[in-house]
């Protein structure tokens, strides 16, 4: 009986915690459904008195928000694919191939993880400018591909694959490449998923670099576009929240579809820490 009571109290507490944690998101949606004069007012009401989609119409009508979403999707998708194609082979090399200089190379690459991105902005800008790719989506993508976090995760995983599996393949006459593609890569599927998901999230959320690298508002990413919302319409909170909802929706859908993969993937980075 006492246990029962305890259980109930725990459940109530848990529901409360969930409610508190989710509340900011609910508030974002609620605000976005109000008219501005209902938002900036002393007579506070929790729910919208005349719910309206006005802010959404404005957002879609007066900005390039759809284009921004598309840009973000392109950038994130290409970054995802590119990261995997570049990171997996070198991670494999670090994990399994004994070549001279491997450790030094590995630490150089890992040191790249600690570089504050601000250090790179000016040089990158000038560099990309000389290639003539400033203000293109390509400019937003390339620096992301040099981020080594994926290598770290993949290498950890590949290291855990028993050598015996590879040896068997070699004895069967398979070369390095075939072993990698047919044995290592399929086994490392989970790690690979993590890496590309992280690449997606990071690319989607990137702010500073696209802010500087992309100058035409048609080419903005959604993250940069939303930050600009504040300006175009003064500080109109209802409008800004509508923009935030639009910007977050694709990510939310992405998350809900791959929820398990994403969480398990991040969890993997911690194992063997």
């Amino acid at each position, binding site marked *: 009986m006492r246990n029962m009571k305890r259980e109930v109290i725990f459940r109530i507490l848990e529901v409360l915690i*969930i409610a508190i944690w989710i509340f*900011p998101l609910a508030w974002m949606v609620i605000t976005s459904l109000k008219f501005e004069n209902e938002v900036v007012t002393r007579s506070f009401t929790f729910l919208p008195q005349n719910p309206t989609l006005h802010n959404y119409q404005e957002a879609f009508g007066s900005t390039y928000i759809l284009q921004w979403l598309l840009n973000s999707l392109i950038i994130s998708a290409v970054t995802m694919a590119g990261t995997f194609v570049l990171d997996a082979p070198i991670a494999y090399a670090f994990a399994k191939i004994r070549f001279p200089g491997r450790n030094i190379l590995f630490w150089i690459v890992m040191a790249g993880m600690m570089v504050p991105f*601000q250090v*790179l902005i000016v040089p990158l800008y000038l560099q990309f400018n000389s290639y003539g790719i400033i203000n293109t989506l390509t400019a937003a993508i390339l620096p992301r591909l040099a981020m080594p976090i994926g290598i770290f995760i993949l290498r950890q995983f590949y290291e855990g694959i028993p050598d015996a599996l590879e040896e068997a393949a070699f004895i069967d006459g398979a070369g390095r490449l075939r072993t990698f593609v047919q044995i290592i890569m399929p086994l490392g599927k989970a790690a690979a998923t993590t890496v590309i998901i992280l690449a997606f999230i990071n690319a989607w959320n990137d*702010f500073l670099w696209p802010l500087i690298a992309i100058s035409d508002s048609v080419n903005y990413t959604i993250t940069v576009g939303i930050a600009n919302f504040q300006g175009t319409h003064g500080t109109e909170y209802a409008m800004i929240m509508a923009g935030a909802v639009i910007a977050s929706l694709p990510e939310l859908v992405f998350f809900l579809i791959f929820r398990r993969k*994403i969480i398990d993937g991040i969890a993997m980075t911690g194992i063997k820490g």
Partner: protein
Amino acid sequence: MAIPGNKDIRDGILFSLPFMIVFALFMIYPLIFGLYISFFKWDILGTPSFLGLQNYADLLADEKFWSSLWHTVQFVLMTTPVLLVLGFLMALLVTSKSPLRGIMETCFFVPYIFSMTVVATLWAWIMQKDFGIINQVLNILGRDGVSWLTSEKNAMWSISVATYWWTAGFNMVLFTAGIKQISKEIYESATVDGAGMLQQVIHITIPLLKPTTILCLILQIIASFNVFGQVYVMTGGGPAGSTRVLVQYIYETGFNYFRMGYSAAMSYVLFVIIMAVSVLQYVFLGRRED
């Protein structure tokens, strides 16, 4: 790994090459170029003039540099412990036998996927002094609104709260993974010995989670040292520059005042600090492990 006709060198190079090219082009080259810039006075439009180490010397005497560095350290100290504890507590809830654990996991994690801009504007709105919901509710309760973002004693904490909400879920996931790795038998035998839930957490879970904790700590400190977006959007470094963090100062000198060399010099100092902190942690915390 032995392979017939040992081609390790060739394979090592071939497999590393694609990434290393990209890495050299978009990481190493700009890093060296940035270092080069840090020896110059340059407004990006005109011709650079060589200063030698002057920028680094100026930096030592620059009060704003030190205060920004201090604000960054403040932020690291305000966020890191709380985020670790919060992530750990969440992980305990998520690995409990509660029927709500799946929902909790999703809810706790979901803020992490939102972009910094969204999170920061959302919290800036929630904490807005006159019309934000927290103060509106306080008013209804007959209390005066609080200057969450516009008073020096609250602003950094308010930014921290938004950060807790945003990233605690990430640490939760790491801790959850760690907890799940601890074998059930240890708990079972502890239960047999009559250890309560709390005792089990203190004597089993926490000590066995040490590797996870170290990983979280290192990741968290690196992330917190690099803080910029939340501050930039929520307070703009205010009030009166009391939340201006180092990355923001780097950004401002570089991209508002176009003192590129000075900005580059400061970013190198930040780089060295982050590197040193990480290495120290690795050496001190990692060593004792073995």
